[in-house]
Structures are given as C-alpha cells and as structure tokens.
C-alpha cells in the first residue's frame, strides 16, 4: 500500500506500524518503549510517547493529527510527517519527564570525554551521576539526538542507586525509566522465563487494554504515568529467570546490565545463543565509505574509526591528517572489509586515540583487530639476556 512519509511516496507492506514504515523509509523517529521484534510499550500501557508523528489522511480528518507511530498501523493514503517544531516540542516535553527521574548530568558535562568516573570535578554525588553505561546507553544517544542544543534543563537528578546482582545480571531499579522493553521480551521470547513485570510508581491515566485501545484511537496518553520493571517474585531466580540476557540487550539505560569485562564476555555469548534484533538508534556521525565521503574528509588532525557493515569496529587511529590517515588505513589488510567511517576533529589526536581505544577495550575485552599488532612483532627477542 502506498503512503507518503515526509513528502516521499513509498510502498509499504500491509499491517506494519507507522513507525516501521518510517524505519523502512529510512526516516528515523525517536522511540524508547518500542523495540524491533518485541512491540511497543503501548501493549503494557506504558507508552513513552516519543514516537509521535503527524498524520493526515487515511481518515476523514484533513488536519494533521499527532499520532503515536508505534501503535498505529499504516492505512492507505496516509501522509506522515516525522519532524517539525510542534513534534519537537512535544518530544522535548516527554523527554524532560523522563530525565526528571533519571541521572543525566554527565551527558552535558564539559569533562564528559575521558572523565575518570572516579571523582566528579563538579562535586556531583554518585547518585546524581550517569551510570557505568555512560557513553553507550541508548537514552544518552536519544538525548543527544532530541536535544543537541541543550534546551532542556540539565541537573543532577538524584535517584537511589541500589544494585541487585544475580549471576552476571545487575539490576539498578533507580535507573529504570519504565519503557517496558525487558518485560515485553521476557514475556514473549522463547528463551526467557516471564520473570519480569511492570509496577506503577505513579499510575497513568489509562493502562492495559484500555490504554492501548485509547492510543489506537489516536489518543496520546499524558506523560506523567511512571512505572518500573521488577522481577515478579522479588528476585530473578525466584521468578523463573533463565538468564538468557535478552533484558540486558534491550535495556536502553543502565537499569539492567552485565557489568565488567566478564559481563561483556557473558553477554557476547548470550547474543550468540539467544539473539535479539538490533535497536534502531538515532542517526549518529557514522557515514558510509563512498567516493564522495572520502573526498569530503578534511585534512585536519583528528581521530577516526573504521567499521564493517555489521558495525564491528576494525581500526581506531589518531592522525595528523584525517584525509591521508583514513586512506592509508584502508590499505591495511585488517581494514579490507571497512564500509563505515566515523571521524572527529581533535588537536590532541594521540591522546584522543588512547581514550577511544580504552573505551573500546573496556566494552569488548580486547583491542580492535586493526589495532592489534601482528604476532610476528612479538616473541622473537633472541637477545633478551643481553638486556638484563
């Protein structure tokens, strides 16, 4: 069936939601409760409301109607607008409600890159700082996308930071924003054990089936209902958790994590055993390696990362000339499959390179393949004894 998305006509399969149609069209719409292959929080009555778009046609209305795109199926002839001042203001308002109850001050801190995370230069208490997912968390990326100009008030939102560890899974309930993803995947995945449920902190106007029905009629629930995900019977083990790790994979914050290097390795294994779809993330500064993009790289000092089409980072480097540095790196054998590029201007590029390498090593437990020195440079010191 044909719809128009931001003025472009597009054929989409029947039965997809407006949000899925926008994804197919390559038009990113912010979302938190919705996750590919799982559904959206509307099913639990906890809609985040960020995916609001304006829809004209497909109904008798001629005026554009704000509509939650994740819950609403496309109808033939719909004209969908994904961005605009009114939509942006609405998303900001909803995001503000989330940030009121979630630590976020580090996102806009001048020391955000390379902060030791040990002591805060500005004296923000630990409870008000971002968690260990800082720099990786989806919510942070969403905040950067929706509010790049820092229009929202940023402050040290303090929440209780009590961690519950079971197996490799750590739950920090204070960090839960109540998007409902973990509850939905835990209930629907064949690998999971239906161990989680939502608990209201502040009840929304309409919940459950009534809430969903209202959303599908076009009503947008008032932001203000707040809830969080909890194990059905107090602990994960008592609730029948299978430790499949899928809740960790879909959580957009640090509320459910697998901490440390051991956790990262465990999660990588979980991903192989019980895979989940990749999240649809805000467009970042990664670009495809085309002739035009290569020609557009400025000849300035900076750092760059090369990745293959699956997003695996192949090489991180700081160079005096980005343009020459990228082209030289593309000649290296380990970068043969590179198809995406990220770069950033940095005068202190050797230091910035170390920062990016440290972050990568912490996330993956090893260095990117292109930064691994060849084995032939090690272990043939014939003259060791002479150096002692």
């Amino acid at each position, binding site marked *: 069936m044909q719809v128009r998305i931001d003025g472009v006509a597009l054929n989409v399969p029947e039965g997809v939601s407006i949000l899925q149609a926008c994804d197919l069209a390559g038009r990113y719409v912010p979302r938190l409760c919705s996750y590919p292959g799982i559904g959206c929080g509307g099913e639990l009555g906890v809609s985040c409301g960020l995916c609001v778009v304006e829809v004209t046609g497909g109904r008798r209305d001629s005026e554009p109607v704000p509509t939650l795109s994740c819950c609403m199926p496309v109808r033939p002839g719909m004209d969908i607008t994904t961005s605009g001042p009114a939509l942006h203001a609405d998303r900001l308002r909803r995001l503000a409600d989330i940030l009121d109850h979630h630590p976020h001050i580090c996102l806009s801190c001048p020391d955000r890159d390379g902060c030791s995370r040990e002591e805060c230069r500005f004296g923000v208490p630990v409870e008000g700082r971002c968690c260990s997912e800082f720099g990786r968390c989806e919510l942070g990326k969403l905040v950067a996308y929706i509010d790049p100009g820092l229009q929202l008030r940023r402050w040290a939102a303090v929440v209780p930071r009590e961690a519950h560890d079971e197996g490799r899974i750590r739950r920090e309930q204070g960090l839960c924003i109540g998007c409902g993803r973990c509850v939905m995947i835990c209930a629907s995945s064949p690998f999971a054990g239906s161990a989680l449920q939502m608990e209201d902190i502040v009840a929304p106007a309409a919940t459950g089936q009534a809430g969903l029905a209202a959303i599908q009629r076009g009503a947008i629930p008032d932001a203000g209902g707040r809830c969080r995900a909890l194990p059905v019977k107090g602990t994960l083990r008592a609730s029948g958790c299978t430790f499949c790790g899928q809740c960790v994979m879909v959580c957009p914050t640090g509320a459910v994590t697998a901490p440390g290097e051991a956790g990262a390795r465990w999660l990588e294994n979980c991903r192989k055993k019980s895979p989940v779809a990749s999240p649809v993330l805000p467009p970042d500064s990664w670009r495809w390696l085309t002739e035009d993009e290569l020609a557009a790289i400025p000849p300035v000092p900076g750092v760059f990362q090369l990745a293959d089409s699956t997003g695996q980072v192949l090489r991180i480097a700081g160079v005096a000339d980005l343009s020459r540095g990228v082209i030289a790196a593309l000649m290296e054998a380990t970068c043969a499959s590179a198809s995406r590029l990220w770069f950033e201007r940095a005068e202190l590029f050797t230091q910035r390179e170390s920062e990016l390498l440290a972050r990568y090593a912490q996330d993956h437990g*090893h260095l990117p393949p292109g930064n691994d020195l060849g084995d032939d440079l*090690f272990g043939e010191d014939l003259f060791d004894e002479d150096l002692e």
Partner: protein
Amino acid sequence: MTETQHFWRWSEKTYQAPDLDWRAASSITVGVDVGSVSSQAVILADGKLLAFNSTRTGSSSPDSALRAFRGAAEPIGLTLDDISYAVGTGYGRVNVPFADRTITEIACHARGANHMGGPSIRTILDMGGQDCKVIRIDERGKVLNFIMNDKCAAGTGRGMEVIADVLSVPIEDIGRRSFEIDEEPAAVSNVCTVFAKSEATSLLRAGWSVNKVLAAYCAAMAQRVAGLIERMQVEREFFITGGIGKNIGVTRRIERLIGVEAIKLPADSVLDPQIAGALGASLFAHSLYRKAQKEAAAAGGTAPGNGGTPGGAAEPAGEGAGVAG
C-alpha cells in the same frame, strides 16, 4: 641575582654500553618516546642494548625527539644516518622526524615492561607525566586491555613536580623523605594540583612537618592510582613504568593498598622504568627491521644491510624503505 633552584628538575639520565662496538653491528634500531613531560630514546645494536637517554620534553616535539636521540647517540659517535629502523611512540609520536613508523605508547610500554620484568608480568601501571594507565598484557607483552585517567594531573608526574616545587624538596628525595615520619598521616583529601600550594601551606601552618605533608601527598596519589588498578581487577604480577615508578613514596604505598608487590628491576640493572616506552619501541623497530629484511629476501632482493633511512614519514611508512646497500 641569585640562581633559582628548580626542585622539580629530575636528573636526566644517559647510558652507553661500555663494551659494544656498534660499527660491527648489522642493524641499529631506535625507539623514541616523546611524552608530555619527558622524552626518551633507546638504541639497539643487533637487538642488544647500546645506549639510551632520558630528557625533558621541550616546547617542540621534533626537537625533543632529536635531543633524546643525540643524548644517547653522540657520546658513541652515532648519527641519524646510521639508523636502520626507528619507531616513534608516546603522546608526541607523530613528531619524531626520523621515525619509519609510529606505535602507540600503550603497546610500547607493554613490550618494554615485558622485557624488563619478564614474561610473568600481566599488569603494567604506567605512571606518566600527564596520565596514568593500567595495561593488561599476555606473556609476550601484547596488550589485552587497558584503562586510563588522563583528565587530571593529580597522581601524575607533573603533579609530583608541582609538589616538589611547592615544598622545596628535590623531586628525587620525595620518596625517601615521605617515609621519614613518626606516623603515617591520612592522605590529603584534595590532590588537585591547582590547589596544591594552598593545601600544603595550610598543612605546614597547622604544624605538619614537610615530610609528613609529602607522605600525605604520596598516599593520596597512591590511592587514586590504586582505584584505577582495582577497576582493572588486577590480581597477578605487576610492573610499574614511567617516571613515578622511581618514587618509592608512591609505589610502596600502592603496593600496600592493593596488597601486591610490584616486580622490580634487579638492583644491578642499567635499565630505568622511565625508558619502558622507548625500549618497547626499539624492540618493535628491531622486529620490524628483521621482518622487512625477511620480506626483502623472500622477494628475491638483497637483504638490506646497515643502511640509513633518513627522513621518513611519521605515519606508517613502507618498511625498510630507502635502504641503500
């Protein structure tokens, strides 16, 4: 006019192997580590330690690299033209004008520490001039993982220099003097280098001895670093590189805090923990040169002899390029 004494000034160190004739060697490989505070050059002849030099980094990185090299090379009559292969490393690695290739200081410190401390070393604490890194390595000295703190000068070499100046204590005496106290004081709560002067002054005014203030600073630095080490979950044998590796006031307190004793260089060793990065770079230069020789031989060409590779790009250049037979 009276001459001002610079208490932060550490002695620049140079070494030349007494019984090694580099003119008989088939390869001269060099590693140069241009750090934010100090620069080092290590020269190997056929993989054997020929000479090294450690000097302060000046305002120009290329000059500092050359100064470090000349300090090691000139006493034995070696010049840039005699170098077979050179590797640049450190914060200013791209500014080593005669380098054939650059390698990160993380990899070079790993390789150098592996060489100094032996294959059992699994963790390296690199306490540099302006940052601090904890590096985990395998038995060959290859980097497995690392973390760093580079946003704060407290707990780094530069921070220690400031303390030396503020308290008018020669930097090389700080470690020893910090133990000449009746009772170990609590660590100073604020290790900020910017506030070091007012903090130290107020402690002295409160009746603390200079040694006690030094102890409190060393303890605070050790605490900061121990936190970084613990984040890396270190249990096994570790080695300390970088200038602060020579300050027992900090290193012994780190050992106390984490409950693990660092592996030390033998007392009669001519090596110095501060040259670990340049040593690693020189070893990589040696391996890269041998690799280039093998490749040249396999390609049917004559193996390059001890020829010069003057100039050379700072970015990875062709291995063994510009070899004159």
